[in-house]
């Protein structure tokens, strides 16, 4: 379970002060798929960074499995990310001049998985994204869709409990994008991994259990698909006075 409580993030100082996240509150149950929706610049990525401990908002808590990760020491947060979380980015960020094997092996190395256990895990992850035949190919020789599949393999290789995807289909055409979406949802369903997708694609969002709409750094609305589609407007009174 991920609980986000009163998270506030501001950029800049004094006159240039900009509130990117303003008293954000929500709870994500384990194994849910969540879409974070909003216009460009609304604060989706900032929220994702806060939830993953990459960023440290100045106020609020992010409680994952009962632990407030914003209070943890850097070392513990790194370990958290290395063992429990994973990321997929819009621009893939695969290492073009490394082989697929080395790309996927990176999170395992970071998590200090012994070498003899890595091979099987990498193989399994590449199998899951149907890239096993490319294991020795350099990532630069892959197409855009294949690169993102490689990124997914890298994200799932260490069997994370939370998978963050920041506009994973943003750089892909719709058919390729669909392949990626299916991979992510399949993985979410099969492994009970919490999937958090940042997107501005409403069709993709509809496939998620839960949709969070962000506007100007605030949760504008939350939709839980599994129950009867019901839009809960967050009452103004519950927001903290700014």
């Amino acid at each position, binding site marked *: 379970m991920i609980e986000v409580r009163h998270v506030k993030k501001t950029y800049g100082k004094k006159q240039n002060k900009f509130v990117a996240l303003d008293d954000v509150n929500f709870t994500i149950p384990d194994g849910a798929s969540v879409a974070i929706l909003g216009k460009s610049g609304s604060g989706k990525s900032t929220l994702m*960074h806060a939830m*993953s401990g*990459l*960023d440290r908002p100045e106020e609020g808590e992010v409680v994952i499995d009962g632990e407030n990760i914003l209070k943890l020491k*850097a*070392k513990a947060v*790194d*370990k*958290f*990310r*290395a*063992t429990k*979380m*994973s*990321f997929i*980015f*819009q*621009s893939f*960020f695969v*290492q073009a*001049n*490394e082989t697929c094997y*080395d790309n996927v092996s*990176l*999170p395992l*190395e*970071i*998590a*200090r998985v012994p*070498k003899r256990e890595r091979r099987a895990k990498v193989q399994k992850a590449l199998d899951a994204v149907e890239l096993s035949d490319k294991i020795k190919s350099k990532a630069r020789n892959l197409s855009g869709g294949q690169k993102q599949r490689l990124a997914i393999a890298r994200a799932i290789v260490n069997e994370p409990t939370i998978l963050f995807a920041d506009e994973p289909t943003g750089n892909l055409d719709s058919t390729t994008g669909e392949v990626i979406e299916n991979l992510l949802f399949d993985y979410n369903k099969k492994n009970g991994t919490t999937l958090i997708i940042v997107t501005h694609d409403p069709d993709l969002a509809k496939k998620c259990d839960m949709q969070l709409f962000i506007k100007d750094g605030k949760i504008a609305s939350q939709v839980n698909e599994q129950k009867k589609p019901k839009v809960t407007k967050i009452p103004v009174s519950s927001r903290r006075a700014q």
Partner: protein
Amino acid sequence: MRRRDIVRRAGRSLRQAKARTLLTSLAIAVGAFTLTISIAAGEGSRQYADKLIGSNINPQALFIVKDKSVFEGSQTSTGVTEYDEDTITGHAAMGQQNVKQLTQADIDTLTKRSDLEAVQPIYNISMKYFQVQGVDKKYVAELSTYNDGVRSDTVAGSLPPLEKQINDTEVVVPESFGKTLGMSAADMVGKKITIVLERAASAPTNQQIQEILMTEGTAGLSKLTTGETKTVTYTISAVTKQASTSLTAQTEMLVANSQAKQLYDFMKSGTNTYQQYTGVTARAKSDFKPEDVKASLEKAGFGARTAKDLQNLLFTIVNILQGIVTGFGVLALFASVFGIINTQYISVLERTQQIGLMKALGMRSKDVAKLFRYEAAWIGFLGGAIGAGIAWGLGTWLNPWIMEQLSLGDGNYLLIFQPIPIALLIVALMIVAVVAGYFPARKAAKLDPIEALRTE
């Protein structure tokens, strides 16, 4: 991240930027080359000096003087010294300073010591002239005692082994004589040398005059007051080498100890400098360490030099030369440090995204720093290995030629490459590279992953 994985990833990053890695390490290679040559030359010279001394100087040999300033040179000389009746103005070989002489009493003290043997004064004899068989002209040279504790290299003829004197009929001359005489070294060997000595008239005391008048009459008196000459003939048995690499360059002709003593007695007996010697040679007895004997002699008021001191003197020269070459190497290294810093900064900038991703995936900042430090270490290793390798190859190839140019003698190589010092050098270069890579590595470690992964 495990160290092994970091090292592996560091190596891989470098392979992916081959040209840059190679060029950066070449800068280090220049320094490594110079330092390797310097180390090899130092080792070679030391081994050469060791060999020379080991085979040509008895390790137990000691050179003993009364006046330590003989060893210290003119730095300590103030120009003014206290008058002492045992002090005479030293001859040219000792410089124009007043040198306190060893007296017969000193010689007796030394001879009686239980830790010394073969105590022999060095007799320095001034001749009137000498003539070499087959040469009409007359020449003048210094005449001294053959020292059996040191064996010089010869260009012609041969010398007895250490601790053996030459024969009483023999004389040893330096190579340089040949030039003046117009003879080759080989020609000189076997030639006879006739030496004429002239003793100055002594100033007899009244008592001596009376005694001589009583016993020998006026003839005796005139003999006493006019000079007296003595002619001796020796055969040249060896010509010693004068090369710059020769350990004991000699300018005097040398005769056997007993001969030198006879000639000395003839020249000096009855004079006020009789039985006064600048130095003596001796040997520490085999169950005494020469250093200990030296210390004990110094306590007793003598100055002494061991074979090792002579060796150290040579090493000082070697060390100075080596220091100069090393200086150039260090300068080259210093320049290469900026190359490493530059390369690593560029590398950090180029790989901003990679660093951001690794940190997002939970890599520790200190591991990121390590990654870049290991890359720097690899560059240092590569540069060191290239430089040392080229130096080794080139040095080994050129050694015979250098040996010939410096006439070191067969098997004496100037450049001696040893694996351990070279390995240490490479390790040192790796450390230098890591130190140079410190700031770029820190920059990488401090990179904010969010900034790094931002795509506009």
